[in-house]
């Protein structure tokens, strides 16, 4: 009877719960992960990258007058309801209300204050109204519209007083005296000098570049760009060995004899690898956020969104790696196939972007060229008399070519990893209001983030399920 009870007791004690099995695989994978020397090289490389970033100096450049001018120009348009994440500057330009505004004078307050993003200004604003097309504005209208750059407020008006004389009003001319305080988003657009190693390596033009653009580039570079690429590449190399090592002859038998269904070995190893890479990515992205925050004082958390998107991208690569590892039992093959998949996705994604850009170009034919905030802020080059614009060469738009169709067809079935990148870009642009080529893509009506995420997840699941099925059915 005792024997019976003992046997029952052992039976229940030896029934491994999912959690305990997973913890065991996690521990195994963790030791395998730590054993990879390349991981330590990677961490050292990333530490160097961040040390270099931390050596940067970011300083505001004098630009107050230009920004006040920009606010005045914005005043000339009816900006109500404009959302730059949806509307292009082209739309915006079409909203001119038949008036022209400019800054007649601007002086810092107090008079000896710096020309910087934290300074208040005393401003004289002048406005000319084209008769018939526009009408005279009231002080309240000016107050509600001045500085309303759509992503946020450049300026807030502390005080406004109309100084228009009767005769001027009759001629459609108005003037106001304003006292303006810097708005919360002004810093994002304010030009800053950016240099590395103290002042030794200047990376911007002398007049500086909008701080938001600098943060955007820095965050992209550290997380999505160099940092993310190195990290994911090393992660691919390290994790490619997990499954082949686990299922090699002599090691596999030691696992198959355990009371787990076989799929658990694959899925748990997959999840364990994903968790470690999530940890590394989390560290990288958090460090990026902290470093750019410390350097610039801009703490918009949009970059943190790179964790789920980069992780999803890696999840897809890892499923390819696991699948190849199960089929070939070779770490080298798993690594090569995964890197090749990455390369194919990158090239197809890049070509697809060209197709989209080409389509947008054609749609924009005849419409005013879109301008970005960043471009609008840059001093415009003086037009050179005698210099002629090159005549446009008539050629077949790229998006109508056979290559483009093939690219679109291939792209339609591949995981849309390029979309994952765009998700980050869109978020960063929302945070830092910078435009340019990326904005075009961002504004593409083709862009559906849910489809990108869904397709990537579907591919990941398909590879993983295929790996589990093959592994479960094959004789060791």
């Amino acid at each position, binding site marked *: 009877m005792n024997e019976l009870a003992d046997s029952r007791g052992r039976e229940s004690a030896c029934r491994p719960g999912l959690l305990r099995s997973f913890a065991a695989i996690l*521990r195994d994978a963790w030791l395998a992960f730590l054993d990879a020397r390349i991981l330590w090289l990677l961490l050292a490389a990333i530490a160097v990258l961040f040390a270099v970033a931390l050596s940067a100096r970011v300083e505001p450049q004098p630009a107050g007058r230009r920004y006040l001018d920009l606010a005045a120009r914005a005043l000339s348009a009816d900006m109500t309801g404009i959302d730059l994440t949806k509307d292009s500057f082209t739309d915006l330009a079409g909203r001119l209300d038949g008036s022209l505004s400019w800054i007649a004078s601007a002086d810092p307050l107090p008079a000896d204050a710096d020309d910087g993003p934290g300074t208040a200004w005393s401003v004289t604003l002048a406005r000319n109204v084209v008769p018939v097309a526009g009408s005279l504005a009231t002080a309240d209208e000016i107050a509600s519209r001045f500085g309303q750059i759509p992503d946020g407020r450049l300026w807030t008006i502390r005080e406004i007083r109309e100084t228009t004389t009767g005769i001027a009003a009759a001629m459609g001319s108005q003037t106001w005296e304003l006292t303006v305080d810097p708005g919360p988003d002004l810093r994002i657009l304010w030009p800053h000098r950016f240099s590395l190693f103290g002042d030794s390596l200047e990376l911007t033009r002398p007049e500086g570049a909008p701080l938001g653009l600098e943060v955007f580039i820095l965050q992209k570079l550290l997380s999505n760009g160099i940092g993310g690429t190195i990290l994911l590449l090393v992660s691919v190399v390290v994790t490619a060995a997990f499954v082949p090592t686990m299922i090699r002859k002599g090691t596999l038998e030691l696992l198959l004899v355990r009371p787990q269904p076989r799929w658990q070995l694959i899925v748990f190893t997959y999840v364990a690898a994903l968790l470690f890479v999530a940890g590394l990515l989390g560290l990288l992205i958090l460090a990026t956020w902290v470093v750019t925050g410390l350097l610039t004082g801009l703490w918009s958390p949009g970059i943190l969104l790179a964790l789920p998107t980069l992780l999803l991208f890696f999840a897809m690569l890892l499923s390819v790696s696991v699948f190849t590892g199960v089929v070939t039992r070779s770490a080298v093959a798993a690594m090569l196939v995964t890197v090749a998949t990455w390369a194919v996705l990158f090239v197809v994604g890049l070509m697809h972007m060209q197709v989209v850009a080409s389509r947008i170009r054609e749609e924009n034919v005849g419409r005013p060229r879109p301008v970005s905030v960043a471009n609008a802020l840059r001093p415009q080059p003086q037009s050179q008399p005698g210099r002629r614009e090159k005549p446009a060469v008539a050629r077949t738009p790229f998006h109508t070519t056979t290559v483009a169709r093939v690219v679109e067809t291939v792209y339609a079935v591949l995981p849309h990893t390029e979309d994952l990148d765009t998700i980050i870009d869109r978020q960063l642009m929302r945070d830092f209001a910078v435009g340019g080529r990326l904005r075009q893509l961002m504004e593409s009506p083709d862009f559906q983030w849910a489809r990108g995420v869904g397709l990537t997840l579907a591919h990941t699941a398909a590879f993983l399920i295929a790996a589990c099925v093959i592994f479960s059915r094959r004789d060791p």
Partner: protein
Amino acid sequence: MHAGDAESSTFFLKFAFSALSATAMTAIEHVVSVRFLQKHYGPLRALGGVSLDVERATVFGLLGQNGAGKTTLIKILLGMLAPTSGSADLLGRPVGSVAARRDVGYLPEDHRLPEYHTGPSLLDVYGGLQGLARQERRRRAAELLDMLGLAGREKLRIRGYSKGMKQRLGLAQALLHRPSVLFLDEPTDGVDPVGRKQIRDLLLAERARGVTIFINSHLLGEVEQLCDRVAILKKGQVALIGTVPEVVGEKASWLVAFDRPVPADHHWNTARLTPAGTDGMWRLHLAPVTGIDRFLDEARDRGLHLRHLQQERGTLEEIYLQLADAGGSSS
């Protein structure tokens, strides 16, 4: 229980076994029960209808040349391979089920332990997969490492282990969760003689505890010392099965020595004697239908006293080689 019995009462027994499930374990006499097991790899026949039983708390030795089907049989029993036909039960459960593996320890041949582990960390992982609680894992790992002579090497990674150390750790992982059946493929491979003795003692202690041990080995002497029963596989079939004495058989020859010299041409009525060695030893072949008593009577009648009498037995090695030769000449 014999094969015939099992066949005649299959339905009832299978039903009873599955219904009793875990509680039936202690009542089962045959821990391993294999019936007409076949395994084909394409045109290649690895097992051609193997039937055998292994009783509880015994050591069973599986012998055979390379490619005889020993490892295939073990892998089928452990649920790693699916048989082409036939049936196999382990601890009363059909092999291949997760439940059948819960109470089993296995040391594969040519195992490769993950080299990034230390002994304790590897046992911790395998213990976790086996469902042992953390404290139990640690306690048991320390106990086994000590028992197998690996104490003091806890910090050493497996990549720094000698072959013998790896073998000991392999054995530790098989014993970790106190399984009631052990499958050991060449358990003393690469271990020095002292270590082999330790391992033999350990296995005998496990058997005394009620553990059934299934050994696959080429070390015939060791099998002879350890095993209660053996089976010799040949080309995927059981060529011989039984207790060691049954398998090696008894010969009708004896070795005798007398208290004084006997001339070589001395005539005996009950036997024929030929010199065996230089020590006054004779090999004695009894005449047909003659017992040893008749010879002893004749010797006494002639005034001869015996200082040595020993029945000659075959060794497992002889039998094994005989079978191998038979295979060699037939193929």
